[in-house]
């Protein structure tokens, strides 16, 4: 039986409840919400003057009403040391979501830690230090002193290259401009750490190098372009599930207004199913290509557009590089860049060749080209907005494939104009503000391999759980644990020693191959099992946090509750590490180095914001952002007039492209020749195993699965990570719905729960990515591209049944997710 909250009544928000601006911190879309708080001894009433909405709540509310909230939107939290009642509900006045909540964001309140209701008791409340064989709670001073002493000793006895850092670079969640600045200042200004990586990939690098090298920032449009366009061209993305309210509030009105849609994806996604409902199946073209062949498809589409004369000659002449090669192919550029003619020498591919490679009819590829670029009957130009995400970014040949996508947008003049744009869709919000990272190098160090090779002595981890979100995870985990255990054993053996003796024992263990691990997170994560010091951090709204969404919309999401226990914002934790480093280095007599750690006297996250983002963007302050509310301002901010921050609706509307730093402002095309599987080992693995193990995301918990592992509503639906399979494949393997299975290949093993999905192709499965209960990364090989971008999406394995369905898995619904209307 489905989980029910057994709630028949909720407290009513009183008319005078306090109100806060909230940007949902889970996904890139950044929907606007309002948080309301009020004292425990008060409640609103049903009469209009007694409640926040000013409506009669003794009556049934109509559909899409503002004056309703679900039990998941209510909680009791701490505010200024007192329990208060809290409602967090979608904001009808936010242009991003117009009052729509999603299954993730509309549970923000319920996913807050509460001593009263017991939600999210998994949140870390105190610093923990490995002592006496367990993690002992302790003070910040004690924990930071140990971190600084070990780190200082290792980087001074060796070098800063012995410090490995895993750090998020995103906005939303616990990221944002404040926190990326805090860690950025620590590691890129006070130190020059080059052995670092980002939360979801094994190096410190861009996910969209080629777009930037071609001159285009990857977020260049406005969400409204989806309603102004003629065609939505989507590749390797499933926005109904992963940018939900961007899809519902912007793409759907576009489709209902007559736009067509081309979707490139090996599987039939729910975005395709829903778009067929909204636009009519005749207006949705699904190109169900063979996995990893997007590049060939895009090249054939571009060839068709060029050959049919559907390019935008004026735009190309005015805004793109005219003659030959501008950037040669080299170690840092997996393809050369230059003029359209130059690109075509590498990209040219016929419809028939592409049909053969991609496994879709040539006529469908031609139709896609026509829908993207064929002029209207009256000869006018067709508008097309192009969007892509992990199917491309984590796919085969990242650099060239993104280059090939951007080629199409440039050739058709679909950038910087209404109804255009060529953008990644995004995962988290953005919120990157750091000192320069040029010292990291390009290609950057492959950090996982660096650690696996036994290099590095100290590992600082900021809200990254590589146990769940790295490739080659089986080996990584084995080595990371072994190296961490060497240090744990040394600490245990030094029990009762002075701080100095313990630090010496730790450093000796590091020199013997050990790894000292510091984990900053909001929960005790899986990689946190290897930590020696664990530091508790905050999320958005437990601190003030600024981020921008997928159309560069910058908002201040306001603090409405206290940090959990003694947790702190990451920015202030970074400041604490820096201050401890300064003190310890001075004690060590290293004054010059100690001086580099000055400048962290921040009392609040706002101080970190002023020290970082505001220095580069002096117009932008908390006060002004607060006044801009949930609609905020689209970056870049260009001024402040009449009490309003002035933003930029879309980039490159002047036809000048600058992301590559070229003075001439000309965009470059990418000579993105097709070369089959780019990453090592993929072709061999494909040949050796029956099933393609696609990894996918799910509406219900993507971007907040770490919280939802303790959320009853979610755990009731998916008690184990789902592995969707064709029913005929299930029958052949003797699997019933809900049976537990394992996926095996040379890289490792992972497990999940069989879920029948008749729309899948045979011999492919779709396994949820990043699950705490079964890491898909275990079976992904270490193959990356030239710039160390992982190809998570291409992995093959065999499948074996582990067990019959458990009582828990047997009870859930296994019906198709596609609505039948």
């Amino acid at each position: 039986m489905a989980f029910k909250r057994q709630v028949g009544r909720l407290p009513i928000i009183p008319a005078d409840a306090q109100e806060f601006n909230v940007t949902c911190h889970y996904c890139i879309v950044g929907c606007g919400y309002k948080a309301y708080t009020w004292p425990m001894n008060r409640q609103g009433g049903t009469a209009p003057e007694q409640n926040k909405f000013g409506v009669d709540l003794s009556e049934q509310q109509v559909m899409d009403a503002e004056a309703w909230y679900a039990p998941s939107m209510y909680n009791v939290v701490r505010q200024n040391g007192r329990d208060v009642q809290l409602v967090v509900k979608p904001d009808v006045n936010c242009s991003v979501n117009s009052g729509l909540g999603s299954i993730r964001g509309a549970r923000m309140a319920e996913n807050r830690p509460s001593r009263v209701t017991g939600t999210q008791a998994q949140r870390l409340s105190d610093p923990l230090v490995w002592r006496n064989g367990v993690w002992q709670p302790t003070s910040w001073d004690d924990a930071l002193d140990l971190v600084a002493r070990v780190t200082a000793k290792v980087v001074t006895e060796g070098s800063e290259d012995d410090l490995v850092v895993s750090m998020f670079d995103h906005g939303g969640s616990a990221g944002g401009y404040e926190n990326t600045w805090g860690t950025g200042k620590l590691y890129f200004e006070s130190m020059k750490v080059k052995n670092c990586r980002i939360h979801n990939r094994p190096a410190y690098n861009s996910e969209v190098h080629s777009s930037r090298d071609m001159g285009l920032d990857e977020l260049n449009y406005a969400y409204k372009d989806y309603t102004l366009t003629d065609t939505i061209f989507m590749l390797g993305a499933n926005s109904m599930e992963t940018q939900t309210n961007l899809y519902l509030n912007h793409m759907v009105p576009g489709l209902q207004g007559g736009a067509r849609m081309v979707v490139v994806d090996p599987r039939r996604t729910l975005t395709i199913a829903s778009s067929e409902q909204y636009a009519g199946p005749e207006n949705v073209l699904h190109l169900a290509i063979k996995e990893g062949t997007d590049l060939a498809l895009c090249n054939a589409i571009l060839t068709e557009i060029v050959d049919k004369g559907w390019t935008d000659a004026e735009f190309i002449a005015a805004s793109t590089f005219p003659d030959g090669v501008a950037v040669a192919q080299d170690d840092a550029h997996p393809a050369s860049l230059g003029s359209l003619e130059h690109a075509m020498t590498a990209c040219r591919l016929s419809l028939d060749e592409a049909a053969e490679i991609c496994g879709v009819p040539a006529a469908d590829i031609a139709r896609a080209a026509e829908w993207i670029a064929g002029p209207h009957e009256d000869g006018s130009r067709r508008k097309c907005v192009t969007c892509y995400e992990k199917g491309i970014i984590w796919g085969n040949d990242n650099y060239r494939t993104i280059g090939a996508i951007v080629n199409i947008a440039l050739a058709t003049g679909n950038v910087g104009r209404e109804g255009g744009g060529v953008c990644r869709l995004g995962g988290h919000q953005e919120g990157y503000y750091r000192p320069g990272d040029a010292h990291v190098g390009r290609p950057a160090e492959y950090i996982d391999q660096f650690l696996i090779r036994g290099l590095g002595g100290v590992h600082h981890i900021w809200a990254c759980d590589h146990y769940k979100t790295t490739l080659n995870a089986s080996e990584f985990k084995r080595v990371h644990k072994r190296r961490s255990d060497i240090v744990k054993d040394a600490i245990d053996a030094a029990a009762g020693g002075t701080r100095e003796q313990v630090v010496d024992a730790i450093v000796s263990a590091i020199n013997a191959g050990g790894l000292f691990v510091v984990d900053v997170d909001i929960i005790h994560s899986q990689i946190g099992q290897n930590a020696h010091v664990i530091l508790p951090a905050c999320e958005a709204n437990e601190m003030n946090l600024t981020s921008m969404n997928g159309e560069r919309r910058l908002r201040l999401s306001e603090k409405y509750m206290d940090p959990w226990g003694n947790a702190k914002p990451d920015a202030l934790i970074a400041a604490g590490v820096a201050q401890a480093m300064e003190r310890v280095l001075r004690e060590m007599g290293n004054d010059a180095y100690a001086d580099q750690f000055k400048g962290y006297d921040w009392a609040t996250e706002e101080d970190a914001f002023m020290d970082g983002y505001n220095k580069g963007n002096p117009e932008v302050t908390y006060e002004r952002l607060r006044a801009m509310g949930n609609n905020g301002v689209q970056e870049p901010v260009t001024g402040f007039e009449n009490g309003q921050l002035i933003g930029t609706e879309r980039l490159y509307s002047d036809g000048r492209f600058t992301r590559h730093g070229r003075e001439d402002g000309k965009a470059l095309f990418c000579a993105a020749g097709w070369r089959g599987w780019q990453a090592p080992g993929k072709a061999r693995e494909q040949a050796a195993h029956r099933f393609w193990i696609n990894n996918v995301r799910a509406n219900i918990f993507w971007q907040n699965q770490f919280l939802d592992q303790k959320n009853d509503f979610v755990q009731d639906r998916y008690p184990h990570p789902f592995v969707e399979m064709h029913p005929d494949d299930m029958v052949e393997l003797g699997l019933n719905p809900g049976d537990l299975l394992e996926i095996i290949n040379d890289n490792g093993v992972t497990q999940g729960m069989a879920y029948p999905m008749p729309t899948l192709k045979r011999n492919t499965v779709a396994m949820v990515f990043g699950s705490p209960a079964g890491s898909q990364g275990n079976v992904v090989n270490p193959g990356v591209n030239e710039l160390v971008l992982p190809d998570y999406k291409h992995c093959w394995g065999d499948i074996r049944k582990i067990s019959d369905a458990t009582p828990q898995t047997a009870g859930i619904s296994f019906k198709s997710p596609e609505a039948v209307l």
Partner: protein
Amino acid sequence: MKCNRLVDVGRRQFLRGGLVATAGAAAATVVGTGQAQAQTALALVDYPANRLANIADLAANEPMDIGYPDADSPGVLIKLGNAVDGGVGPDGDIVAFSVLCPHKGWMLSYNAGDRTLNCPGHHSRFDCESGGQQIWGHATQNLPQFRLRVEDDGDIFADGVDELIYGRLSNVLA
């Protein structure tokens, strides 16, 4: 039907009112005059017991429109044709659900093919054979199910709801 129900509710409230008065009077003697008296209220929503239909009125896999706890809260009563967890009646197959989508309150429609309730708004769907579990969708709760009881004569009564119904902050409106 609505009137009958209101009469029913009124009578029950009236009886409880007597008990409240007694407790209030006792409290008053302790706190003395000049101080506000706390109003005693019940902790749970008090659901009416409403007759929805008789088993004889139901055909297998054909939903019947109902309203519960009152006519402004539309729902369906379904004899699924096979026993399900939480089903009532001699075959254990009778269930009832709200049809207001707990996402944004659009009206769900029943698909007899796979016994699901589907939302035209944003395509959420709920499984009538799994206690209203959201198969896929945007709602942050599973579908409110009406607790049913069948009398010896086949009359089906609803007397409770297990989730908050869309559009009301109290399942029984004040």
